[in-house]
């Protein structure tokens, strides 16, 4: 029951986040000095044309009324229409959501699996590997993903043409090309995460391996592999998962840059284009989608942490 209560409280808090973040996005955009009518209609637009445009889109209404109107429709699943091309926001974002999810989930899998494997190996295979990991970790944190992306393209798309330099292939069009088109973007996005997860895993593993209960297990004749992989890894998991969640949320902003460099038609590249066009409904829609992704990931992490941590699980 404690687990369920804890989760219920977290989900309730997350729902609040779903209201607060889009509201902040809406009002920040509302007070920005952009004029979407002139941006869309051009320098030559007459006052009448601008007034008609603003009236048609409700932009002549007070911002609070506009927000309430947007919120009323959003709770029914209607995120409005683009100011610039008139298309429904859901239609614009639908194909892009899958692209972004495949990128960030791909990166999540890579930095989680590779990071944990490297972390465990460095904790168990001696100091040399550990020191090497320290160096690589520092490089991983220092290397910006846009720079790494360019290097990867030059090396593995231009010099050695294994992967495509740009573009995205939908899974339904060609599964092999889908995976190939994601390799370089996923690596560019995941690299910093790999090193961070590896370092966290190693530190937590070392703490666990050197703890009094590990010594007790050894004294009782438990096999070292059992201590490491059955007990230490489980104890180290909770803080590592928390770090993974933090990195995942950070990778959402990183995806904006990576999508632009690799020309992936995802939410990140759309957010940049729409922000420059002051296309507020689309930016607002992307904020909602990103918030939902963050909320879902946070809830999943809470569940995982709760299951792995007996102190949280037990009454």
């Amino acid at each position, binding site marked *: 029951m404690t687990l369920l209560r804890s989760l219920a409280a977290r989900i309730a808090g997350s729902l609040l986040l779903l209201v607060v973040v889009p509201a902040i996005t809406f009002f920040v955009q509302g007070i920005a000095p952009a004029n979407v009518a002139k941006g869309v209609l*051009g320098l030559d637009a007459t006052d009448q044309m601008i007034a008609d445009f603003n009236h048609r889109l409700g932009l002549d209404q007070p911002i609070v009324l506009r927000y309430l109107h947007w919120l009323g429709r959003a709770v029914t699943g209607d995120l409005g229409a683009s100011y610039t091309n008139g298309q429904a926001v859901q239609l614009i974002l639908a194909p892009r959501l899958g692209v972004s999810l495949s990128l960030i989930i791909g990166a999540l899998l890579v930095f989680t699996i590779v990071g944990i494997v490297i972390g465990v190996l460095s904790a168990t295979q001696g100091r040399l590997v550990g020191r090497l990991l320290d160096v690589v970790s520092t490089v991983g944190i220092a290397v910006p993903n846009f720079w790494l992306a360019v290097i990867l393209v030059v090396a593995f798309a231009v010099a050695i043409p294994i992967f495509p330099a740009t573009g995205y292939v939908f899974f339904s069009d060609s599964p092999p090309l889908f995976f*190939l088109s994601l390799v370089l973007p996923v690596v560019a996005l995941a690299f910093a995460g790999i090193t961070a997860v590896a370092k966290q895993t190693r530190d937590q593993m070392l703490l666990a391996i050197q703890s009094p209960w590990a010594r007790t297990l050894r004294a009782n004749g438990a096999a070292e592999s059992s201590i490491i992989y059955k007990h230490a890894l489980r104890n180290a998991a909770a803080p590592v998962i928390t770090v993974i969640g933090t990195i995942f949320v950070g990778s959402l902003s990183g995806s904006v840059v990576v999508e632009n460099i690799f020309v992936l038609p995802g939410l990140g590249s759309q957010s940049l284009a729409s922000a420059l066009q002051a296309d507020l409904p689309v930016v607002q829609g992307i904020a909602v989608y990103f918030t939902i992704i963050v909320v879902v990931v946070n809830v999943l992490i809470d569940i995982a942490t709760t299951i792995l941590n007996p102190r949280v699980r037990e009454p």
Partner: protein
Amino acid sequence: MFAPVLPPRRGILAASVATAALLLLAPVLSTAAAAATLTVAATAGPTGLDPTTSSNGVPSVWFPNLSYAALIWRAPDGTAKPGLATDWKYSDDRLSFVMNLRSGVKFSDGSPMTAQDVVNWLKHYKEKGSFTAWLANVSDISATGPLQVTLKLSTADPMLPYGLDQGGMAGDVVGPAGLAKPESLGSTTNGAGPYMIDTANTILNSQYVYVKNPYYWDPSAQHWDKVVIKIISDGNSILSALKTGQVQVAEGAATEADAAEAAGLKIYSAPSAMLGMYIGDIDGKIVPALKDVRVRQALNYAIDRKGIVTSLYGKYGRPTDQFVPEGIGGYLKSLEDFYPYDPAKAKQLLADAGFPNGFQFTLVEQPAVSSGDLMAQAMVANWQDIGVNVTLKPTDSFATYVPLMGTQKYPATTLTFNYSVQLTDTQQLVTKPALYNYMGYLDQKANDLASAQRKQDIASPEGTAAAEASETYMVQGGFLTPVVSVDALLFASKDVDGLQFTTYPWSDPTNWKPAK
């Protein structure tokens, strides 16, 4: 118990197979686009696909060019040729303009084009178009025959053939179904051009896919089964996509030209735009000093154009004091280097005008000026040397820039002005009303010179002489501070032909064809 998923030897085998598969698939990727597909990279997408609100210049015009045939087609050499209209002419008094339309034209939904459709479109554009100034002197539009349209003019205007060509946008006739539902035109097309948008495969702001319009009147001009325009804002990504064969033609940048050349790509270029400073406060309402022609001339003499061009634009830019490049009527050899770099003379002019200690003003940076930040900073440094302190105000997008200028609180702005003909410069920069004249100043002589130009055919000797008179007045009056004439560039692979272009019309993807 932790254990590797595969024993080491099987792991090596799997890795080898995967690597081999990747290597085998690599050629598939690079040739994924069939020979009948042209893939183009543009640095920015359009706000929408509706020609009513389309911007001009490259790459904006590429999108309507593909799906909307214009009433007049301007050939790459600049001559006006039949488009949806087969012929056209002004009346003797130049107050009416009659167009005869091509017969048998159908829009992409299969509906036939009638004279009334053209009338409805022109009326729609005159009311709501981005460049309504093209039709500002048109007082009446009517169908005067089953395939004839007549425009009545309130005053002579020789610019109609430019407004109605594929760069002017006012001639991009939209079909009746599109006009009946204008909100649909942002994401769909309803034109009589060679291609139409494939909405199922288009992702707005990322990838625009055009397929053949089955009703196009001249199938021999449909050189590709499919044209794809990918939006790639990053210059490195564009070059990588070109090098790996993912795109065949792309907007080029001067800063990437050497790398493109080294990669074996073809480079096409032509003078495309004047960059510099536009002064809106000619009346001196915000900065009184700017009202004095000597001050504006001093600002021109203070600029080291050659230095700026050498360091920022290389061989794809040329220092300029003028508003049109060589080859366009109105350009004068005698005006070249009219304002040589001469800080001493600039200081003297300031002193003569009563500003020996200089003055200060704020310069708004227009977004999308090529190397605009660096050019503006160099200009500010040059002006600092003669005692004029300029504060830069950057803007991030036109959605921010346009309303900022509309506040009438800023005396000047940097600008990119795309070349077409000299009368466009005069009409859009120094007359009242004018597109750029956001402060609404009136210079009677500039207006009179524009009126004189409007009475002549653009290409006639009289028209050229009138253009030269306007050009001379604008340069000598220091209405702007032109700095550099920059080239537009196209980078292309060797398997595409027909890419040569001139200053005007801008490059047009309907001219591009597979290399023989």
